[in-house]
């Protein structure tokens, strides 16, 4: 519930950004570092840009990238996890060794390396996550599939003449995919954090497009005199993470299979 409320409020705010906030890119060099006021909710930054507007537009970008970046891993990971868990054998062995290798790397090292190779910005982020993030889904879904496959209803359906394809799509997937969907919520948080981190390190979303990471990085230089510049986007990241996490918990309770 709380998760729904927080996430809903944040999503609504960032969607309404064009209506409720001024242009995040327009500079006013005569009005820099103004503190929070009615004209500028969270004040202005070193270039006189409205921090509230930048915050909302940054949220738009970061949440959008976060949500989109988990879709490919979700789909490929679920497919691979189902196939490996159901059929086992050499295919399972190969895929799971790849999973082990990917998991053995420190995650950010791998993501940074990939982003450097394929290029900065959103395209790099999408590709980097598509290549690495599926392993978690593959593992989760594989173990759920292994559990489901041992159940007698699978033998009953096979004995009744139900083919493999139908068994996988209509019986296995509905039983296993809920675990992946619950994880998606935590993963969105994780990816948003990663996008923000990449932005902070300067290899994520590129300026002038606002992004919480770059906002924090830019505000950092003025942290002692104008603390809101780095703090406000930081709080936004925390709140978004909290909202999606709580949403994931609620979803997990809802989707937990009744035995």
């Amino acid at each position: 519930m709380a998760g729904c409320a927080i996430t809903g409020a944040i999503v609504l705010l960032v969607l309404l950004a064009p209506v409720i906030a001024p242009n995040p890119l327009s500079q006013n060099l005569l009005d820099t570092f103004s503190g929070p006021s009615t004209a500028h909710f969270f004040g202005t930054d070193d270039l006189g840009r409205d921090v509230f507007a930048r915050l909302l537009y940054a949220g738009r970008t970061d949440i959008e990238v976060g949500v989109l970046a988990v879709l490919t891993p979700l789909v490929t990971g679920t497919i691979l996890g189902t196939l490996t868990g159901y059929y086992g054998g050499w295919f399972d062995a190969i895929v799971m060794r790849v999973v082990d290798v990917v998991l053995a790397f420190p995650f950010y090292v791998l993501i940074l390396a990939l982003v450097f190779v394929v290029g900065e910005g959103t395209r790099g982020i999408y590709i980097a996550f598509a290549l690495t993030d599926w392993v978690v889904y593959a593992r989760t879904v594989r173990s759920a599939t292994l559990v489901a496959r041992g159940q007698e209803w699978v033998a009953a359906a096979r004995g009744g003449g139900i083919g493999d394809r139908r068994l996988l799509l209509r019986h296995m997937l509905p039983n296993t995919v809920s675990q992946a969907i619950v994880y998606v919520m935590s993963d969105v948080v994780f990816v948003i954090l990663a996008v923000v981190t990449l932005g902070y390190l300067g290899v994520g979303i590129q300026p002038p497009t606002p992004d919480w990471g770059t906002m924090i990085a830019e505000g950092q230089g003025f942290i002692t005199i104008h603390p809101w510049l780095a703090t406000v986007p930081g709080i936004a990241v925390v709140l978004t993470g909290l909202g999606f996490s709580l949403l994931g918990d609620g979803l997990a309770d809802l989707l937990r299979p009744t035995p």
Partner: protein
Amino acid sequence: MTVAPPLLEVDALSVEVLRRHAGSFLAVDGVSFCVKAGGAFGVVGESGSGKSLMLRALAAVLPNAATAVGGSVRLAGRQLPHTGRAARRERRGRMAMVFQDPLSALDPVHSVGWQIAEVPRKVLGRAAGESRRRAVELLSLVGIPDAASRADAFPHQLSGGMRQRVAIAMALAAEPELLLCDEPTTALDVTVQAQILELLDGLRRRLGLAVVLVSHDLAVVRDLCTDVAVMYTGRVVERGTAEQLIDDPRHPYTRGLIDAAIELDDAAAPPRPIGGSIPDPMQLPPGCSFEPRCPLATSACAESVPVLEEVGAGRVSACIHHQLLAAR
């Protein structure tokens, strides 16, 4: 005039189980028996006697680690392949299986009516409406009250006994001539057990189904089956009619099973457990596998694996000392 072959002929069926890094062993070793059309055959044994794997081999739904390695299964005279697509195709609409654990025998994400209708609709090619009607019909046939609305229930909304009835309805939906039941009452309360057994018996009589019932409980088998095989370490040690085996067992293991059963109405005869435990299937004794636990064992027992010998009209035993038991 030729005599019609029995509905099911199992001849020297063997199942090999692979253990990772440990090699393999025969979990089912040369099991043979016949079931007449409309007949009821019981298989009794302890956990680990290979009876469930034997049944799964008949239905061609062995787990991955197990393979049928020998022998033949004939249905109405026609030999069935052990594995693969053809194995399942040739069994389709002819045999169906009811499993031990009604909690895991139904898919939790679909309504029971949907699950029962699935095989008629997708495998037998019936129309959706007809399949649905058939599902409701089957639900009332297996004694579920208010079947039309219960068809929309999900497995978790039903009790264990109800789920087992649904599982039986699912098996019947495949329109089998032969129903394979793997301990169908073990996971249920005693009162529900009796109901399910009665249901199976009624279905057998009304639909002319043949039933193979696997159980660890001689009493369950006696209630339902006319003929019985007793299995130990994957081998049939005694086979005959239910009456013969229970009133006058000719194998010490059968004797032991009877003595180990709890008789509620007879306080004078407390259950006597069989000493020792089932041997490691990877290291079976060289002779009779029951020899280490057997009260009648002599040195001759450990020399070679005894074969099934005829010990009476239509009954066989694999004990070289079966006369000792007959004398008692």
